[in-house]
């Protein structure tokens, strides 16, 4: 892809916009269309685009397997951690109302944190799956 200057430049220009849009979808999720799953996919798609243009090797430098695994598991831990927090604060598992003084704020905070967990896990899963398929002919 070295000779395709247009593709390389446009990709570099698009990357921040794609990742920023993913974050917008993530944090605007409870007010408009969107949420953790969609945001995670968009974030992952940014990496897919980068990999297509610049190759698996350079993409892996940004997201090494160990880091991806940590984010993958970390998202699940955030989700379950919110549930456990509700449990420790005196409610049942996944009761968000007890997370804040005001139940409504608690519900908002709870769903935002849960979606953050979903988003990080989905993004890491999409990136890992793509790396596995894209890097199949030459193992690391």
């Amino acid at each position, binding site marked *: 892809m070295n000779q395709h200057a247009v593709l390389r430049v446009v990709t570099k220009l698009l990357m921040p916009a794609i990742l920023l849009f993913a974050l917008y979808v993530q944090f605007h999720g409870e007010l408009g269309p969107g949420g953790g799953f969609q945001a995670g996919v968009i974030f992952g798609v940014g990496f897919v685009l980068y990999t297509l243009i610049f190759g698996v090797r350079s993409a892996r430098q940004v997201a090494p397997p160990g880091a991806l695994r940590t984010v993958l*598991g970390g998202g*699940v831990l955030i989700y*379950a951690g919110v549930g456990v927090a509700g*449990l420790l604060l005196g409610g*049942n598992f996944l009761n968000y109302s007890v997370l804040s003084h005001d139940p409504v704020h608690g519900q908002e905070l709870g769903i935002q944190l849960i979606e953050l967990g979903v988003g990080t896990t989905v993004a890491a899963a999409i990136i890992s799956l793509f790396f596995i398929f894209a890097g199949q002919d030459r193992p690391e």
Partner: protein
Amino acid sequence: MIVGQLPILQVIVPLLAAPICAILPFRRLTWLIALAASLLALAIALTLLDQVLSDGPISYLLGDWAAPWGIEYRVDPLAAFLLVIVSALGSVIMLFAPTSVAREIADDRIFLFHAMYLLNLAGLLGMVVTGDVFNLFVFLEISSLSSYVMISLGQSRRALTAAFQYLIMGTVGATFYVIGVGMMYMMTGTLNMADLGTRLPAVAETRTIIAAMAFVVVGIGLKLAMVPLHFWLPNAYAYAPTVVSAFLAATATKVAVYVLLRLVFTVFGGPAMVGLPVDQVLLVLGIVAMFGASAVAIFQTDAKRLLAYSSLAQIGYMVLGISFLTATGLTATIIHLFNHALMKGALFLVLGCVFLRVGSVQISQMAGLGRRMPWTMAAFVVGGLSLIGVPLTVGFVSKWYLIQAALEKGWWLVAVLILLSSLLAMIYVWRIIEVAYFRAPGDDVLQIREAPVMMLIPVWILAAGNVYFGINAQQTIGAAQSAAAVLLGSGG
């Protein structure tokens, strides 16, 4: 406060431990985490069983959302009994695992094996505690997906095709199940099992519900490898690492039988069931499994595959017990869930020891092992006798109740068939015992030493369980009887 949270802790302890294992690539540490999580789950399950037997069913509302709308976790005697089976077998098998896993799974994948094991455990425990048919589907997928990965970790490349075959069949099964659930939701507007049980009779004779029953029973039939939906199982058990075969044989099929019990009795109303003759279908399929699978087991050359076919036959006994739709029949099925977990757990772990020392589980390579590995093979004899149903072992207790249930119904022929199929079990167990004890050992076998003590201890915990619960069956029978009573009571 903590006591009220036990039903959810049962599931989230392994569920939280799994991602931690995936993040930390150290196999010793992840093994300790997996073992600790299993033991903690066992302690929770025992507390729950004790609580349920003395104070009655426990209901837990997820996120404090009220029951028919929110997800309800419900622990009754049957669920608590299953929780104990799954977490106890998981703990013993994890105790056994390190040496066997180091031999059979690549070093850089062992921590992932532990993560997958914990996810599987969380999925199985979740399927048991939940009182919501859709939540059950979610846990079914968690446990299925992780078991596909665990099977594919086997050494031979055929493990990959076996896992893929299971992936396809398992996905078809899960899809059928969720189609059935969708149809029930369409007709009743609820996903809560108890609520479904009260609302279904009004619409029971509609074509939608009849189709839903068919979809759900076939879907779960695929997961529990009910003959003729069993084709994925022999390959999966034969090529998976031995520890995985042991865990799946001892727990996964048991939980699938539990789901069938829940659906047939709590949701569809058991004896009051109308629409489809589910009981008659189960009766015929159970008997076919008892004979067909046992007959195929006799001709196997690979000991793991032999045990896999034997599992199919044993599942036949459980299905047969359900088909009676009586308290004794259900007691027989429920007690056999526990007993079969003990037998197959012990037998597969013995094969794990054999594989460690011999490097293969071909029956022909086991010649003379009885003298070289006396403790290992003695455990196999105990497990084998139990599988046949010899008195003083748990296998006898199961068959005793099953035959009683058949006689209660006046089905003499069925009782005779149960006895005849035990003779088939005798043939295939004898084949291995004969080779191990009465054939002269080959040259390679003479070099072989007994398995390490750390592996023999878990094997003998299970083997001793086979005898202890065979002689002192009061507790297990009591738990099974109260579980059967709850199932029939909720079915009206």
